C-alpha cells in the first residue's frame, strides 16, 4: 500500500497526523508523510484517509 496526498487539496487540518502519527506529521506549515505503508499500519492509513476533511489522501494498493 502506498499513500498519495493531493497537496492542492490538503489544508493541514492535521486529522491524519492525529490518528496515524506513525505515517503523518505536521512540521510548521508542511505535511510530511511516509509513502510506503508497512502491513501493520494499513488500517491506520485507511482511517487517516477517511478522517481527512479535504479528501486529500489516496491509498494505492
Amino acid at each position, binding site marked *: 500500500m502506498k499513500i498519495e496526498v493531493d497537496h492542492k487539496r490538503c489544508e493541514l487540518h492535521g486529522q491524519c497526523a*492525529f490518528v496515524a502519527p506513525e505515517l503523518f506529521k*505536521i512540521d510548521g506549515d508542511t505535511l510530511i508523510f511516509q509513502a510506503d505503508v508497512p502491513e501493520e499500519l494499513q488500517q491506520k492509513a485507511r482511517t487517516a484517509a477517511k478522517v481527512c*476533511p479535504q*479528501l486529500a489522501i489516496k491509498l494505492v494498493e
Partner: protein
Amino acid sequence: MLTRGGIVVVGAGLAGLRAAETLRERGFDGGLVVVGDETRQPYNRPPLSKSILLKGAGDTTFPIDETLDIEWKLGVSAKHLDVRNRTLVLSDGSSILYDGLIIATGSRAVRPSLPGADRADVHVLRTLDDALRLARALRSTDSVAIIGAGLVGCEIASSSVELGKTVTLIDSEPMPMLRVLGRHVSHVIANMHRLNGVQLELSCTVSRIEKRLNAFEVALTNGKSIKSDVLVLATGGSPNTEWLDASTLTLDKGVRCDSRCFAIGGDGRIVAAGDVARWEHPDYDAPIRVGHWTNAGEQGVAAANALLDPDNALPFKPLLSFWTDQYGQRLQAIGAPWLGSEIVFTKGSPGDPKFVAISLRSGRITGAIVMNMPAGLLEWRTRIGANYA
C-alpha cells in the same frame, strides 16, 4: 459476531457511508442496503457554505469503493420502523426485513416559527441543492441578511463578503458562535466579521420577515429593520426522527442511545450514528448529540462495529472536534471549550493571527481552540487525551 443476514443503513450521509464501509471491512458479507432520501450518492457537506457558494458549482461526492457491494436505495426515505418484526417501511411503499439496522438519518435545517420564515424564497443551507440555490440567488444580487451567527451562518457571511455582497449577520446572542467557543474567542470572531465590513446585529431577535417589491425587510426587536435582496436562515438543525415516532425507540431530540450507540427501546439490533444520535458519552453528565463532521464519521465506524460485535463493543467516547474557515482563517477546536469558565492563551493573544487558547474549569482543561496553528492543536489533542469534560 454478525457476519451474514442483512443490514440496512438508513441515511446516506457521512455517518451512513462510514458505517457501511466499516461493515465490509470487518468481514460482514451479508446483504447491505443503504437508504438515502436525496437522489445523490453520499457527498461531503463542509464545502457547501464555502467553495460551493463561491463557485456556484462543484462535485463533493465521496470516493466510494465499488467492490463494497452496497445496494443503494436513493431518493427514498424511511417511513416507519417495526422493531418487533425487524421491518423497515420506505416511502416507495416497499418493506425491508433486516437483521441489523443503522440509523443515520441526520438532521435538517430548522426554520424558526415567526411570520414569513416559511417563505420558499427564504433560504436555508443543509443540502447541496440548498447551496446551489443560494449560490444562484447571490450571483444576481447585492445584499444578504443571515439570521443565525453559528458556524454555518458565519461561514455564509464570510463567503458572501468574498463574493462582494453587503452582509448583515443577526443573532439573539451577544456574540457569534458564542455557544461553542465561549466569549473570549467569540469576540475574536465578531471582530473578524466587523473588519470585513459585516454589519452585526446581536442580542436581538427577529419579529417579522416581509418582502416588499424585491427586497426582504427583517424587523428586529431592537427596533431596526434590515433590508436585503437575499435572506438566509442559519438557525440550526433538527434531528430526522419523525419516521420513528410510532416505534418503540426512545426519542429525545434525537435517537437516545446507550454509550455504545445502541438505540434505547430497540432489541439490540439497532444502532444510531451522526447528527441523529443522542448517546451517553461517558465523559459528559447528560447524553449529547453532536452535529459536526468528524463525529459523524467516527460514530458511523463505532456504531457499525458495535452492531457486528455487541459483546466486545466499548463505549464511544471521542474527543470532540470541529473547525471553521472564515475570511481565510482556520479556527479549530477540540473538547468542550464552552464548558470552560476561564481561558488561557498559551500561544499568541486574542488579536493575533495565530493563537492557542485552552479553556479551563476548576483547574481542569475542558477544551482547546487554535487559530491558524494545526500543529498547536495536535499537541493539545495528545495532552488532553480522553478525559476532559
